[in-house]
């Protein structure tokens, strides 16, 4: 018994520290389902009648949830207008739907200032959605600052993926 216990201890010790040391590598960046670059459907499906949840259907533009920003900018680029229009319309047609918009930044600069920059991006997304028919009460804009990078490298290729607003519907966060 004594032997078994000390063996168990030794294993536990080894395992415990090994795992702590091995924990250096970054977790894999969260992979999101991306719609094909040319969506086959542009009109939002009827939420009740549809067999497939339009928010999850990879062929539906509503399954796309990310808007990307230029460095130090929070204005919505033209290429994301149609995406926000589709989500604005969905929110208008589904008044019970709620959305969390998370603004994100690249890693450069102050963490707290980046929380504020991410907030500005999230509010920019929200404002556009409201212009497209959503109500203020449906959308909560929040910031993750630089804390949850999708890409963990230290170059512009990564940074451009991290300057982002993500739209999450109720039940997804």
């Amino acid at each position, binding site marked *: *018994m004594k032997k078994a*216990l000390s063996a*168990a*201890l030794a294993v*536990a*010790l080894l*395992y*415990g*520290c090994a795992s*702590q*040391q091995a*924990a*250096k*590598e*970054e*977790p894999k960046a969260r992979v999101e389902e991306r719609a094909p670059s040319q969506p086959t459907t542009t009109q939002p499906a009827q939420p009740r009648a549809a067999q497939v949840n339009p928010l999850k259907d990879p062929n539906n533009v509503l399954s796309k949830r990310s808007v990307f920003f230029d460095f130090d900018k929070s204005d919505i680029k033209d290429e994301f207008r149609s995406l926000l229009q589709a989500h604005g319309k969905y929110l208008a047609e589904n008044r019970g739907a709620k959305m*969390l918009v*998370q603004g994100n930044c690249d890693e*450069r*600069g*102050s*963490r*707290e*200032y980046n*929380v*504020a*920059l*991410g*907030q*500005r991006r999230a*509010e920019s997304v929200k404002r556009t959605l409201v212009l497209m028919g959503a109500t203020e009460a449906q959308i*909560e*804009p*929040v*910031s*993750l*600052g630089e*804390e*949850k990078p999708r890409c963990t490298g*230290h170059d512009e290729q990564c940074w451009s993926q991290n300057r982002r607003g993500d739209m*999450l519907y109720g039940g997804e*966060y």
Partner: protein
Amino acid sequence: MPNRSGQFALLLAAALMFVNCAARAQLTIEITGGGANQTPIAVLPFAGEAALPQALTDVIEQDLARSGRFRTLYVGGIDPLPSEMAQVNFADWKSRTADAVVIGSLQKLADNRFEARFRLLDVPKQTQIVGLSLTFAAKDARLSAHKIADIIYEKLTGERGVFSTRVAYVVKQGARYELRIADADGQGAQSILISPEPIISPAWSPDGTRLAYVSFQHKKPVIYVQSLTASRQPAPVANYRGSNSAPAWSPDGKQLAVVLSRDGGSQIFLMNADGSNLRRLTYADAISTEPVFSPDGEFIYFTSDRGGSPQIYRMQAAGGDAVRMTFEGDYNVSPRISPDGKMLAYISRTEGRFRLIAMDLASRQMQALTDGPNDESPSFAPNGRMILYASDVGDRGVLAAVSSDGRVKQRLTVQAADVREPSWGPFSGN
């Protein structure tokens, strides 16, 4: 009752694992630059201190050396070791260039506690500068050594020592975030909070009994205050719609300045430390964040881009018009005020490098204290002598410290972990 001994073994294993790994996860401090005008000092081993697992005088000597203010002299081969002033050969110490000598003794008391007596001696004058005794339990031996080092430091430099203070910081290991507190020398690290989501902006209450911080565990930033003395669950003090971040304590510990987006944009608010009595302070159509009180409580310094780029501003703590403090460059953030209120430390970006800058508030003269490239989150030691900040080496976050005159540099690392968001705690016992 299935397999009770198995359960016990597991528990024991878990406990040992924690102890073992905690020991490995200590911060180690490396001095990367020395100071000028170091006082040569000899710290002689205390008679009887072998009764402790670690000699008090090792800790004292390391504290003094790390401060950059002292040069510790070789003390080997002294036999017998003096523990009283009459036994000290001053002529010998003078020839060894010592300005000061520390002698002492350790005794185990009947209640298993220890009593350390020490004397700090002035070699040229052959006088005692101070002589004191401390009584402590074995588990507090390191803290007692730090306190002795604080007394020596204060007597010889004229300013309070910070060896017995603590620092808070965040460690990221994989997808696990830990808020930790350690002694100022990086030893004795304790985990305050473990979360699968990021933790940023820890801030000590002025009395050292509470930590405010920002947690992302609710998929957005929420401000918490955690007691370090009572085993209470941390309580959210600001969890409004939108983002809640950047907590800063008022010098009396009764209020927190915070940044909320509940009215749209990032604006500075003031509230009581329990979250009540919320009042909005800033109204500019721009970002206002990173508030910090001046030590006299009169002003709040903060970062805002109301002028087109992020710069540091100052306003009355009750709100009102803001005065711009920084003008050079287009990215000046993270203001901190020295404990004497005379210096503004902040992070400035020049040519893509983020560096720590010190500005003398009277003359507005600036000095770059670090070279970057990714220095952030500065935090003054309570005596104002050193500034702790976050930096990186390769892909890993490390903590570093620099003296407020830029001369002494230290690097603090935790093995195989990413360390960030340092915050230096207050003096103990005030």
